């Protein structure tokens, strides 16, 4: 591929044609914040935290999706970039529960001095189902003095995973992973409009009534913990989730001959979560229901619960759950 020459913050760099500005920035040793971007998915450029300034462009440009052009001048730390990234992070932090974003994102938020309290105290959470029932174009009058949020009770409808949409930033990753970028199941989409937009099945039916095949690939790509293993959700609520104490063991799924690799997250000798390595040629981070959730037989000990984790997981299996 022909090389394209550009500058990033004044430093000259050449990258293969067809590369994105984000890839060029990374090659130049300048990582950028991202939320809706993932190597294995089609860029949707909706979160707007990777925006950069390109000379000659009236507005800022999403570095994840914009392809480099010969002679492009890119600025990643100009005043408009800093201001817009800061405010965009503040918009998210003031409207969404970002408590489970990764450490890198938290560092970026510190870097931009993000202060979500500038927009007012968070409004009370919406009752279950209220946000799902909102109709396009019907105005939601602001509650005086409050900053509107997407806070709402988590949807806990089965034993495998939880959809906690109070943590959803609408990055579209789960929709892409459920759809044409991985699973081709199309169980979920973005429904509604504007601030009332949300990830939804048709008419918000339970996942068990929807096309969902429980591959859990949406969990694998979610950047904010809005989609989360039931086990992790319960353990976090019980205050038992402890990543320091966890080991991650890479193995090969034993269900069929494809050879998907699994990462088993183990705490106190119990599997608490299963992921798949992003860089694996077969899976690219994705699995099926068996690889993702079919680990129960490994630890079906038969006897009474012996650890606190067992108690929490058993309570989850029996359908009881801790209110968020």
């Amino acid at each position, binding site marked *: 591929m022909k090389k394209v020459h550009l500058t990033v913050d004044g430093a000259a760099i050449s990258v293969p044609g067809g590369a994105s500005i984000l890839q060029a920035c990374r090659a130049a040793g300048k990582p950028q914040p991202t939320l809706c971007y993932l190597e294995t998915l089609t860029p949707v450029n909706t979160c707007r935290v990777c925006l950069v300034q390109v000379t000659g462009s009236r507005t*800022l440009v999403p570095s994840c999706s914009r392809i480099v052009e010969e002679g492009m001048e890119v600025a990643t730390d100009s005043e408009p970039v800093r201001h817009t990234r800061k*405010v965009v992070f503040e918009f998210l932090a003031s409207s969404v529960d970002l408590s489970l974003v990764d450490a890198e994102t938290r560092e970026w938020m510190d870097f931009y001095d993000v202060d979500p309290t500038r*927009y*007012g105290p968070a409004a009370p959470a919406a009752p279950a189902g209220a946000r799902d029932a909102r109709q*396009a174009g019907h105005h939601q009058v602001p509650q005086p003095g409050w900053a509107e949020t997407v806070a709402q009770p988590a949807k806990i409808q089965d034993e495998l995973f939880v959809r906690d949409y109070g943590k959803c930033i609408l990055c579209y990753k789960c929709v892409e992973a459920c759809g044409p970028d991985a699973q081709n199941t*199309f169980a979920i*989409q973005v*429904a509604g409009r504007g601030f009332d937009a949300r990830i939804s099945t048709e008419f918000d039916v339970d996942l068990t009534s*929807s096309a969902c095949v429980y591959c859990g690939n949406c969990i694998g790509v979610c950047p904010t913990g809005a989609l989360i293993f039931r086990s992790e959700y319960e353990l976090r609520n019980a205050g038992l989730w402890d990543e320091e104490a966890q080991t991650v063991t890479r193995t090969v799924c034993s269900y069929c001959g494809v050879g998907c690799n699994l990462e088993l997250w183990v705490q106190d000798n119990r599997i608490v979560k299963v992921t798949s390595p992003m860089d694996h040629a077969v899976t690219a981070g994705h699995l099926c229901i068996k690889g993702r959730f079919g680990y129960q037989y490994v630890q079906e000990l038969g006897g009474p619960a012996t650890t606190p984790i067992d108690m929490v997981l058993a309570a989850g299996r029996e359908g009881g759950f801790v209110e968020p």
Partner: protein
Amino acid sequence: MDLHFTSAFPSTPERVAVDRLLGGPPSGWTGGARAAADYHVALGGHHHAVGVRHRLLPALQAVQSAIGWVSPGALNYVAERLSVPPADVYAVASFYALLATEQQSLRMAHVCEDVSCRTRGSLRLLESLAGRDDVVPSPCLGQCDRSPAVLVQRAGEYDASLWNATAEDVAEVLEGATPIDPEPGHYGVPQSELGSDRLRLLRRVGTIDPYSLDEYRATGGYAALTKALTMGPEELIEEVKRAGIRGRGGAAFPVGAKWEAVVGQGPDRMLVCNADEAEPGTFKDRGVMEGDPFSLVEAMTIAGYAIGAGRGFLYIRGEYPRAARHVASALRTATESGLLGDNVLGSGFSFDIEIRMGGGAYICGEETALFNSIEGFRGEPRQKPPYPAEAGLFGLPTAINNVETLINLPLIVLEGGAAYASRGTAASTGIKLFCLSGDVARPGVYEVDFGTTLRQLIDLAGGPLEEIAAILLGGVSGSFVGPDLLDLPLTFEDTHAVGVSLGTAVVMPFGVSTDFDDLALRIAAFFRDESCGQCVPCRVGTVRQEEALHRLIGGVPLNGASSDLGLLAEIDEAMRMGSICGLGHTAGNAIRSAIALGLIGGRP
């Protein structure tokens, strides 16, 4: 695709509504009775699904207009017929304000509560209809010359616009009375009603029968197409470039350059006419489509010929049922008369036009959102580049032009580009339509040369009703300007020089007694409601803007009033620099200008 459905089944009326649009289901795989062959052959597949997805919005509209909402059973049937996953169908259905995903009354009145109507009686109208669950407030209906405006969706019957509506009118229609097309001859062109013989773009509006091709031809119609077909596409584009005409939809891009970019692409090209006229205060394209529909059909045919397109789409906003009826009739008549379809006027050029109706979403006036809407996806704008000229509707090179832009073509063809360019100014050639509403004596569409001043235009509309405090120029995505700019010549360059824009040519003067706080809050609410929700700066920014404005106006500052003013400026900046499309870029314009003029929030 192996689709999964809930157990909801369509009722007979729902099936009939969809089948009337799509024809009967061809196999058991797409919603028909299962035949023996279906057990052996899967008909359809990926190519079928890709090819029919664009019929999704029309199918949902068929269901909505038949039974008054999109029920789970109907949604499943549409999904099955078109091989679209039910979650995707719901995603599209729930995007549009004129599609309901919960059961509602069979007749629904949408009462305009937007900037023009709310100062002219619509708030009182809404108040007197309060408590009815079949009345909802609506964004601008594009009938600002006849406030208060109401659109009534009627299941099983045609949708009807009510003008100068009273509570009794609305109640009667909601209870089943047949709405009388008010003032059948009225198209909102006061110049024509006053007998002006100098009109060119509007000369037929209100003076000929919009259903009559004979009257259209008798007044010079189709002379331009006949001439254009002898000129050839290259010469036609040269003439348009000589005319110097720039787009009238708001972006003011030179038409000739746009077309050349399209022609420079691959051979399969597309023409789209943007008639999704939803900018509050804008109603010029409606008048043309209602009063002179053949002129748009002829103009689109000329444009299609110039760029070498075989097909054109006309996307009319859903709130314009009368315009859609008139243009649909003109399309049928033109096709029957050999003026459209195969071998137009024996020239060998073939061209078809398909009408698509919007579903009640301001964002679909954004060109790439409009493409997604036609293609059967949510009306979310696409990041540019690629531009429509490279990859537009269905990924094909596309020329997308506004109605008013296109209806200038017959003039350019007949009199030549140079003669056309002799009017107006060097950078803003030709004639322009303006939408006058608000506090003027004769609201309506006015046709003037570029360079006419604000004052002259307002005088043409009978003058202000009271001393002017400010004028909303270019719509709610435009700006308020003070009376000190009354002598501003209305051209692209003169408005640009003072930091404002002609936008969609809205000129809405407001008198000194106006409650600008109320107007600003309405504008903020409008953008919150109409943001598509795709990108963070606009989705959250429009909410934060409305909240900060409420605090500022309500006098309950968060950390002192100066903090809310500063916050509004920061929000505006982030939306302008960071949003995907023009909606977010301009969502803070009017409020910023209102603050700068001291109309709200105290003088800066």
